[in-house]
C-alpha cells in the first residue's frame, strides 16, 4: 500500500483542486480576523467562545471551527474525497493501475488514506493559520473555559490541538462517505455534491424540531464534541460518543466502497 499511498499524495500535489481546497481552508480564518479587526461590533455572542474573540487570539480558531463545520470544511473535504476514485474513471486510468502488481484492496486503501491525509492537512492548516492570525491581532492571552474558569494560554493551545483532533473524526467520516460515493458513482461532480448534501442533511436533521432524541447520534452533532474538552472538569461523555459514532459513520461507507471497488467491472474506466 505504501507505493500507492505515496503516489496518491503526489497526484494530489499535481492537481489544482487540491490547492483550491487548501487555499480555502487558509483564507477563511485570515478573512475572519480581518473582518473582526475592521469592525467594532461585539462579534458573535451566541456561540461558544464568541464573546472571548477580542480578548485572546486563541479564541479565533475555535470560532472558525464552529462556522466551518456547517458546510465549509465538508466542502473542502468533499472536493478531494469525492474525486479520488472518480478521477480514475474520468481519465480511464483504473485499468492502467489495476493491471500492475497491486491488488485492488491496496489501491483502495492507498486512496482512502490519501483522502484522509488531505482532510487532516486542510483542517490543521486552517487551525494553525487561525491561531496565528488571531494571536497577531488579539494577543496571546489566557482563555476563559466554557465553565467560566480561566485557562492559561499554553494550556489553551494544548486544548486547541486536542479539540482539533476530536473535530477531525466527523470530518474523516465525511471523507469516507466521499470516497464511497466516488467509487459508486464514478462521477466526480456527483460525488462532491452528494457528499456535501450528506453533510448538510446531517446538520439539518439536528436542527429540526422533534429530533431531540436522535440528535446526539447525528454526524453533524459530533462537530461539537470538543466542547467537552473546554469544560472544567473535562466532560468526556460527548467525546467518547463521538469516538465510536464517527468510527461507525466512517466504517460503513469505507466497507461499502471497498467491496464495490473489489467487485466492480472495470469497463469504461
Amino acid at each position, binding site marked *: 500500500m505504501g*507505493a500507492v499511498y505515496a503516489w496518491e499524495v503526489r497526484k494530489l500535489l499535481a492537481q489544482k483542486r487540491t490547492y483550491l481546497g487548501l487555499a480555502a481552508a487558509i483564507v477563511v480564518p485570515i478573512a475572519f480576523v480581518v473582518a473582526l479587526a475592521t469592525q467594532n461590533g461585539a462579534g458573535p455572542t451566541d456561540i461558544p467562545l464568541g464573546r472571548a474573540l477580542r480578548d485572546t487570539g486563541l479564541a479565533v480558531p475555535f470560532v472558525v471551527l464552529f462556522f466551518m463545520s456547517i458546510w465549509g470544511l465538508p466542502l473542502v473535504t468533499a472536493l478531494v474525497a469525492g474525486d479520488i476514485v472518480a478521477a480514475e474513471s474520468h*481519465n480511464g486510468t483504473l485499468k492502467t493501475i489495476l*493491471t500492475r502488481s497491486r491488488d*485492488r484492496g491496496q489501491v483502495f486503501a492507498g486512496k482512502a488514506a490519501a483522502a484522509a491525509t488531505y482532510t487532516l492537512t486542510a483542517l490543521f492548516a486552517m487551525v494553525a493559520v487561525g491561531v496565528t492570525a488571531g494571536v497577531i491581532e488579539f494577543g496571546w492571552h489566557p482563555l476563559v473555559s466554557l465553565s467560566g474558569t480561566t485557562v492559561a494560554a499554553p494550556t489553551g493551545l494544548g486544548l486547541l490541538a486536542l479539540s482539533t483532533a476530536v473535530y477531525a473524526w466527523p470530518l474523516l467520516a465525511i471523507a469516507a462517505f466521499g470516497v464511497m460515493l466516488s467509487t459508486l458513482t464514478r462521477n466526480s461532480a456527483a460525488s462532491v455534491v452528494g457528499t456535501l448534501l450528506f453533510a448538510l442533511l446531517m446538520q439539518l436533521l439536528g436542527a429540526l424540531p422533534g429530533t431531540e432524541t436522535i440528535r446526539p447520534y447525528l454526524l453533524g452533532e459530533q462537530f461539537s464534541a470538543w466542547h467537552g474538552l473546554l469544560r472544567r472538569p473535562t466532560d468526556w461523555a460527548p467525546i467518547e460518543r463521538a469516538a465510536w459514532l464517527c468510527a461507525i459513520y466512517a466504517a460503513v461507507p469505507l466497507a461499502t466502497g471497498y467491496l464495490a471497488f473489489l467487485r466492480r467491472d472495470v469497463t469504461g474506466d
Partner: protein
Amino acid sequence: MTDAPVVARGLVKRYGDLVAVDSVDLTVEHGDVFGYLGPNGAGKTTSLRMLLGLIRPSEGRVQLFGRDPLVDGATALDGVAGFVEGPAFYPYLSARRNLELLADYDDGPRSRIDEVLELVELRDRAGDRVGGYSHGMKQRLGIAASLLRAPRLLLLDEPTTGLDPAGMRDMRELVRRLAAEGITILLSSHLLYEVEELCNRVAIVRRGRIVYEGLLSELKAGAATGYRLRVVDVETARRVAASIAGVGDVVASDGEVRFTAGDDAAAMLTIALGRAGVGFTALVPRTATLEELFLDLTEGERPPLVQEVA
C-alpha cells in the same frame, strides 16, 4: 489446465439480456503471435478485459501461466502486460512521471524507463504532460508502459487503431520485433491483413462467439477451391457439372458456371463436357482469399466455406 500463457474456457459475459461474449475458449501457447480477429463490437475488448481480470466473467474461467486473475489477484498478472481500448495515463503528469508511478506499482526498477522510452521513440518528449500527447504518442507510451514490466505475455487491444499509415507500420514493426525476442503476444484487431501479416495463430470472433480458431495456413488450406468455367452453352454445362461426383455448389450465370471441386473432380468434368459436346473457353481456379473467409465467418450471410469450430 496447463501453464500456457493464456487458457480461457467457456468465457461468457452477459449484460442483462445482451451476451457480449459467448462461450469463448482460447489457448495461446508460448511464442505465439495470436490474432484475435473480429469486426468492431464482436466482443474482443470485453474478452481481453476478462483475461486481465478487469471484469468478472458471468461464466467460465481464465488462467494466465496457470494462474487465475480472479483468484490470485495481481500475482496472476506476473509476466503479463498490455492495454485494452487504448492506453490511458494521468494527463497532468509527464510521461516519465507516469512511468515512474507504474514502475513503483510494480516494485520494478525505474532504471528501465529510459530504455523503454527510447524503444518507442518518446525520450525527447518524456518531460511533457501526457495531456498534450497525440493519440499515436499515447499508443506508443502504452507499449512502453507494458514493456516496463518485462512481460512474457503482451495483450494488445487494437494497437494500430487510429494511427496514421507510418504509425501503423512502426507499430507492426515493433510488434514483430517483440515477438522475435520471444514475447508471446495476443493482439486483437479488426483488420484482417494486419493479423495475416503478424500472427501465426488466429481466433475469429463473431457476435461474441469464436467461429474459427487455429493456424492461419490451415484456415486457407481448408477452404474448398472454387472454379469459374466459361462456356458457350451454359445450361448444358450446368447439368453436366451437377452430374459429376465431387462437384458441388454449382451456379450458372452470365456465360459462366461456378462450382467447387477437388482437382480430380475438376478434371473429370472437362472430359464429361467434351463428351457432351460442350466447348469451354476457360476454366479458372480461384483460391478463396482470406478476406472472403473472414467475411464468410463474420457476416455469415453465405454458408461458411469452412466448418465452424465450436
